[in-house]
């Protein structure tokens, strides 16, 4: 009895149960043929579609293309957002200069930039990477700026009274202090990057998970659509867990 209760309190158990219940319902509904298989393929059919695509090498090529674009665009965004956010959080002048501008651009939906990016840069990799860059830069920057604003004043001033220079305060006080929030901001905005890469590929691409889904739609292959969705979800989950792991390793003090 007590053991069962302990098991229930383990963080993974309930989460896994939720997933299994949905899988079970899905299996039941499809095996009882409650819904036309054209609309709702069975888990087995989706698995078969996965095997077929993996066998042809399509799945791996798509994965590589999508993940590459996400990582490229997001790395760029993260690298620019960190110094920019710190600058906006520490300097009143830079803050006043950029915050209204960022506040405005932030409300422009990133997918609406796709037509413009295609006109400027064609159909290659660059417009997709730039889309992810644009779509995540402002959120990353503003979240980092907020983190900087919440750095306790005493921590900065202590460094100054210990003889610290401005550059030392930035590198040795502000940066480590905001690290947990930065990692968290990246983790949250990574989800937006995934959404954007799929949207970009739906519009124009030769390969990628989004492209595969839009092709599947054309041929009414719902099994392949499901496959695409599940793969996207799984990769997102893995990346999310990765960030959490980094957080736990690098910022043990903040837990």
């Amino acid at each position, binding site marked *: 009895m007590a053991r069962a209760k302990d098991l229930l309190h383990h963080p993974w158990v309930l989460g896994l149960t939720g997933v299994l219940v949905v899988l079970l319902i899905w299996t039941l509904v499809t095996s009882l043929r409650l819904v036309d298989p054209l609309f709702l393929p069975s888990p087995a059919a989706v698995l078969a579609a996965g095997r077929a695509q993996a066998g042809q090498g399509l799945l791996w090529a798509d994965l590589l293309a999508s993940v590459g674009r996400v990582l490229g665009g997001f790395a760029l965004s993260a690298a620019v957002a960190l110094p920019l956010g710190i600058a906006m959080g520490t300097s009143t002048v830079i803050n006043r200069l950029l915050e209204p501008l960022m506040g405005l651009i932030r409300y422009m939906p990133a997918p609406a930039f796709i037509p413009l990016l295609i006109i400027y840069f064609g159909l290659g990799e660059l417009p997709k990477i730039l889309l992810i860059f644009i779509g995540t830069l402002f959120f990353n920057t503003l979240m980092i700026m907020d983190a900087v604003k919440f750095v306790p004043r005493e921590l900065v001033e202590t460094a100054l*009274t*210990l003889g610290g220079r401005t550059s030392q305060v930035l590198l040795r006080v502000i940066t*480590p202090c905001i690290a947990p929030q930065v990692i968290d901001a990246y983790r949250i905005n990574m989800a937006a990057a995934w959404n954007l890469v799929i949207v970009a590929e739906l519009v124009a691409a030769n390969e990628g998970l989004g492209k595969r889904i839009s092709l599947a739609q054309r041929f009414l292959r719902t099994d392949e659509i499901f496959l695409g969705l599940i793969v996207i979800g799984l990769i997102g989950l893995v990346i999310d867990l990765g960030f959490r792991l980094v957080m736990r390793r690098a910022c043990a*003090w903040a837990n």
Partner: protein
Amino acid sequence: MQLRVDQVEKSFGSGRSRKLVLDRISFTVNTGEFVALVGSSGSGKSTMMRLVAGLDRPTAGVISIDGTPVRGPGSDRGMVFQKYSLYPWLTAAQNVAFGMELQGLNRREIRERTSYFLEVVGLADAARRLPRELSGGMQQRVAIARALAAQPRVLLLDEPFGALDLQIRESMQEFMHDLWQRTGLTALLITHDLEEALLLAREVHILAPNPGRIVRSVAVDLDRGDLRHLRLSPQFLELREELASCLRGMEPALTPAP
């Protein structure tokens, strides 16, 4: 060394909302002295400390060290803040080493001085613990060790024990007294606790609020052989009562006059 605060004024805001917080404050602290400013909450104590530390500028008057006006924060004036200010991502030892690292001391020296000052504050065993694993009193001791390790010419203490409960406060006062005797440090203490000021400081200035101004200065010549006895000695109690009534006289009455 002489820290000199001369006719210092500080006001916040401008125009109609301008508020005078400190009014013509003057006092000095010489090498080896322990001086205290005592005032109620809102009398401008922290503001005064920030001015001395160079974290803020006076509206009028001059603060100088050996005749050189203070223009900003510097390692010659080490500060221990009212609220805990340890770097939560650094261990106790790393916190103590922090100032020396900023100043670019060599590694061996940093290591030696870190263990020396941890020893001084009685926390050699806690060297590798993170601040959140330390009690409030231990954290403030690490903060004091960190400030001392950076070799300030004067230590600025802004209600360093204000957030601690009474018992720990008393043992910290004894610790501070002991430290002063052993290391011969120079300190400016700011507190709202009259007893604390009288126990530790040779010179006590009473700060009246609205605007903050020094209304009395006393030299405290008491036998500090045993602080626990001192707390109860008639001389001490008499002086405390006298100054307490002086402080009380300045408070706006909380109950309406009959």
